[in-house]
């Protein structure tokens, strides 16, 4: 489902003497449907960078990133938009939403952009919020005022409200209590069971052991740690 070959990336800082910082070279990996791959490596080794490149958020310098039959490294913006709409889900560590939009609308939005009727989209959003133990009195409020854990669960709800065939998870359980952690792990397991290809970053070792079929150490893709 996701195949990365010979991927490299560097940053050029034009306003700091045009310094070129290579951050990745020769990255290769592949994830099949129903498989969960964990990225490991020390902080700064490029786990998040790799995730962001798959998401299309960072440009690749060379190589290819196939998600389904789209090469994210070369795709036009509108192809990436279509990919994100129906195929590729992403749960980031940060929630970025229009202020003052109710939580239930935030979660339902991915469905609405897919053309699912508002009523059904909202119902599915509510079911998921309930499952993630977000108190019902908060659903009509904007998540921008929520606690870190609540925001994270809203973010997870957004990522799971549509059955994306491919999922990127950036520390989905980081700031969760045990009960909610368990809910999220179950969600991920059932996504795997329905055949989603998942790439995740899990600092939570138990979660990693429970979910991941394979681990890839991204340090091997890091060109001599640039300082």
């Amino acid at each position, binding site marked *: 489902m996701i195949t990365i070959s010979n991927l490299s990336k560097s940053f050029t800082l034009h306003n700091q003497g045009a310094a070129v910082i290579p951050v990745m070279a020769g990255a290769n990996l592949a994830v099949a449907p129903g498989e969960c791959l964990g990225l490991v490596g020390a902080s700064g080794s490029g786990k998040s960078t790799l995730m962001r490149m798959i998401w299309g958020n960072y440009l690749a310098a060379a190589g290819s990133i196939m998600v389904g039959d789209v090469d994210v490294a070369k795709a036009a913006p509108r192809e990436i938009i279509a*990919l994100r709409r129906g195929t590729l889900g992403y749960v980031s560590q940060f929630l970025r939403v229009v202020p*003052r939009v109710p939580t239930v609308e935030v979660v339902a939005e991915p469905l609405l952009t897919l053309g699912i009727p508002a009523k059904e989209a909202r119902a599915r959003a509510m079911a998921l919020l309930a499952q993630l133990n977000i108190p019902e009195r908060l659903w009509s409020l904007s998540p921008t005022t929520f606690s870190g854990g609540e925001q994270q669960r809203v973010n997870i709800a957004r990522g799971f409200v549509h059955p994306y065939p491919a999922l990127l998870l950036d520390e989905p359980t980081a700031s969760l209590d045990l009960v909610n952690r368990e809910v999220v792990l179950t969600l991920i397991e059932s996504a795997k069971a329905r055949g989603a290809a998942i790439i995740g970053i899990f600092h939570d070792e138990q979660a990693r052991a429970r979910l991941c079929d394979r681990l890839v150490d991204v340090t091997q893709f890091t060109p001599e740690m640039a300082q």
Partner: protein
Amino acid sequence: MSILAKMKMQPLLSVRDLSKFYGGRIGCADVGFDLYPGEVLGIVGESGSGKSTLLSCLAGHLAPDRGEVIFDTKEGPRDTVQMAEAARRRLARTDWAYVHQNPRDGLRMGVSAGGNVGERLMAVGARHYGDIRAAAVDWLGRVEIAADRVDDRPSAFSGGMQQRLQIARNLVTGPRLVFMDEPTGGLDVSVQARLLDLLRGLVREMGLSAIIVTHDLAVVRLLADRLMVMKGGYVVEQGLTDQVLDDPQHAYTQLLVSSVLQV
């Protein structure tokens, strides 16, 4: 993949080599892009970067010195630069909409809210008062203005309400392309958020394409699918909005992104 197959459609707007000069000075130069149905394109840059000139050329308010602006009209793709003014104005009141930064420029301040919304309907031939009024009330509702304000003049409205009224007035004829010049410009931050949410919803529900000129990077991040960065009349970088903002390639974009004040 079926979604991609569906997307192999005609661009709604194809811009080629568009240039406008003010004497020896460059307004905008060599601008080219394709806009597809349902896409929202943001154009950012500092004052004087040519973004407003570009928008005026695209919307037919200014005649470019060179280039093509091909719009997918109901009769097929046509270059709006070469079009007769009458045909271009017809597009402007049917398929296009233009939201001004200052609602006073886009509204008739001496005409009631209902009359403002109804004008475009009447311009395209609506002749049934009851239907026009019903459409106006419906649209006021969609932009969250109470139905009992339908006979009030915009001068009695707050800035945010005026801007929402301007949007209703523009969208009532179901345009396919909306030009927006700093749509959240003069508004309080709290009112901005509400307007952004409204615009997002309308773009989604109506399948609108939009071109939004702004200097507010937060606005484009939330509204635009794609982003064009302009400097000195030229497009220096374009791409997916979050990619351009998070991994800017051009020196100017890097400067622009790093200059945003953090709250």
